[in-house]
């Protein structure tokens, strides 16, 4: 007889009449017999789930479990195998619905127009706080986010569980293999939507990084073939060569921006382009130039709080140029910090000379490296003819500024 309590209502459930046995306690023996059967049968492996006997255990590391199609562990992003286009259009549906709020994304923008593009720039899921509810996959209108079957995520690196787009992306074929019937149901709609959004994506935006890299590598190859001639001479950099690793195009842009700023700031000495080759013979003049450069950098930094005129003036049609402007500001600031000790060292004559020389060499190296790096990067960035568009632009601007300054004088 079982007693069930349901909000104060007592429901007594009586089972069928008990079998009367000759010996009391026979039912206990029946129970033992059931367990005995299980024990005996456990020495063979259970074949399927309709069989209630046998060992059910899967010996996990040796034997991978067969996961059902609907199994879900952590969300992943999909991209098209062939074109490399991500299915995600950054509609923010998943970010909105995520109960533990572990999904973060930024929308990609067209670099030329600055308008949002149906693609995602960065996509982050904090796997450590994700609760595998699968809402994101449910809500995604583009079938871009799906639940993975991989559960072997244990790691000692906790921050490493904050997963970025690069690590989240999987080709569609991967998901198709996990859940063939689910993908078959979603495929047509998803691909159609993808086509629609691809039309509105300029250049490499919305491409899976894996493919972006491939494309860039190809472009670099092309550029190396094309640019047999030495790249346009780079100006001596005001800032000492940074240890920070920057991508080549970043460096080029920075350099250009610094050049421009310098030109704008001083406006009396010769345009910086002329200086570098001459500095080879370590003359006192050269040291002086280096020192000057440091001081100028400081000044530029001081001024750097307000947007420098050459950067703000022209319409930033190029994304790289805009970026360069911001970076230039930062670089100038940093340069000023770096330059400060050098400037102080001026008072001590012997040391000052040495330091200045060092700075000059460093600047030269940095400039060289930048020049080398700038060529392919700039090529890759935009169309081949405009090989160093940003750098050239900046150089021109700097020249103009210098001219203007000399005229003023």
């Amino acid at each position: 007889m079982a007693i069930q309590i349901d909000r104060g209502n007592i429901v007594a459930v009586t089972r069928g009449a008990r079998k009367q046995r000759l010996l009391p306690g026979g039912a206990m023996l029946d129970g033992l017999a059931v367990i005995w059967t299980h024990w005996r049968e456990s020495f063979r492996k259970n074949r399927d789930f309709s069989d209630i006997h046998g060992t059910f255990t899967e010996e996990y590391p040796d034997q991978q479990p067969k996961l059902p199609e609907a199994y879900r562990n952590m969300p992943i992003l999909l991209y098209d195998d062939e074109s490399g286009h991500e299915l995600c259009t950054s509609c923010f549906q998943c970010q909105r619905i995520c109960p533990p709020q572990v999904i973060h994304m930024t929308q990609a923008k067209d670099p030329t127009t600055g308008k949002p593009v149906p693609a995602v720039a960065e996509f982050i899921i904090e796997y450590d706080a994700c609760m595998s509810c699968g809402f994101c996959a449910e809500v995604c209108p583009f079938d871009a986010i799906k639940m993975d079957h991989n559960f072997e995520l244990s790691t000692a690196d906790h921050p490493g569980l904050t997963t970025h787009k690069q690590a989240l992306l999987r080709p569609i074929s991967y998901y198709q293999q996990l859940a063939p019937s689910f993908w078959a149901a979603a495929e047509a709609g998803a691909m159609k939507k993808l086509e629609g959004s691809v039309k509105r994506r300029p250049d490499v935006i919305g491409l899976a990084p894996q493919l972006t890299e491939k494309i860039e590598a190809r472009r670099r190859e092309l550029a190396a073939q094309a640019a047999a001639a030495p790249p346009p001479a780079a100006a001596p950099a005001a800032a000492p060569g940074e240890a920070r690793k920057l991508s080549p195009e970043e460096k080029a842009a920075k350099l250009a921006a610094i050049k421009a700023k310098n030109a704008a700031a001083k406006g009396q000495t010769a345009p910086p382009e002329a200086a570098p080759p001459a500095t080879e013979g370590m003359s006192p003049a050269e040291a002086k130039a280096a020192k000057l450069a440091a001081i100028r950098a400081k000044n530029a930094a001081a001024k750097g709080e307000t947007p420098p005129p050459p950067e703000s003036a022209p319409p930033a049609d190029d994304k790289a140029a805009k970026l360069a402007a911001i970076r230039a500001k930062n670089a100038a600031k940093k340069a000023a910090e770096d330059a400060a000790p050098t400037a102080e060292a001026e008072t001590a004559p012997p040391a000052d000379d040495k330091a200045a020389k060092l700075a000059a060499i460093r600047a030269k190296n940095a400039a060289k490296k930048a020049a080398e790096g700038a060529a392919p990067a700039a090529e890759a960035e935009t169309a081949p003819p405009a090989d160093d568009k940003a750098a050239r632009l900046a150089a021109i601007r700097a020249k103009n500024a210098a001219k203007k300054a000399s005229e003023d004088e």
Partner: protein
Amino acid sequence: MYDMLYNLINVVFGFNWPTWLISLIGHAAVAAILFAVAPFQMLFLTYYERRAIARMQDRVGPNRVGPEGIFQPIADGVKMFTKEDIVPKAADRWVHLIAPCVVVAPTMFMFAVVPWGPGMVPVDLNVGLLFFFAISSISAVGLMMAGWASNNKFALLGAMRSVAQMVSYEIPAILSLLAIVMITGTLSIVSIIDAQAGLFINSVDLPGVPDWGLGWFIFTPVGFLAFFCFFIAALAEGERTPFDIPEADSEIVAGYMTEYSGMKFGLFYLAQYVLNFLLCGMTAIIFFGGWQGPGVNWLYSQAISPANPEGMWLFNVLAGVLGVFYFLAKTYFFFFVMIWIRGAYPRLRVDQLMDFGWKFLIPLTLVNMLSAAIWVGLTRWGAAEGLAFIEGWSAGVRWGVAFALTLIINLATYIMMARIYAASQAARSRLELEELRDLAAMSR
């Protein structure tokens, strides 16, 4: 044993040590062997239990450490040794420290009277059986200390439950053994085993039966009922599953072990498994002949023994090996039965446990003692004791009459008691149900 040691040291080596020193060395050696055997049993039994219960639950059990997981208990031991030993801040430090020792020490003591094979008993106490149970009751004190010193309500609750359970179930255990003691007329464990020679009928009741070492008490109605009661009581004393109320992990974390960690916890575990081993061993010894089995007695009759000093030492070894094999086989079989029961039955409630012990087992054992008295009267007594009418009966007829009579008494009592008990439990649950109904009606 001590003569051999004496000869070895003083005659062979010529050290001329005093007798007390040799005696001390002999005792120390035996104790050392037992202390080495006990943890080994525990290691084996934990592995055995985990594998067997896993099979019953359609699993595989530990199989990663070593071939088929046989080093799992060693790995567990290493883990326990290296774990931090935590003492609760509000605990009674000293009592908390001593409690595991008080629980372990008696179980080691109990090994002193357990015979492993023919002539292989550390001490043949003439009150061995009583000694065994007297010592086992000490561990209740240790459990109480553990529960109280932890300063934790779960621990205290578990300790109270376990002590109440141990004290209640000691009575049916000893009473059921008393039936056997009445039949054998001795409290010495060695004599009880010796009385179980024979073939299905022991040679004490029926002189002249062929001696295959199978005259176990389980083949008599008195012995069977005593076994039934004793084994249930042993389950309760060893806190095995249908009676594992003291450490019911779904109710009171781990009972008295809640606040223990590291090796202190390991000691409780050790004590529990060693106690279970000993209880299974005692079941095997008293009802299943211990080391008795086909061949052992014959081998031992050829060996060097107090009765036969001219024997061959080889037969000592053979008899010892065979005897220990029989004993351990029986013991491990009973441990398997314990696991089997663990796999089959759910845990009892506290009041059900007390009801079962006091209202079912104790009356049953008392009736069994009456049967034992009848058995002894019919098989041994004669005109001198006032039973002149059975004077002329042959041993076989006496045995047959005793068997039939005790079987009827025991069976009838069992059926009657079980019916009454079931009816009382049903009435009780009906009462509870009515009470609940009233309350529900009141609330509406």
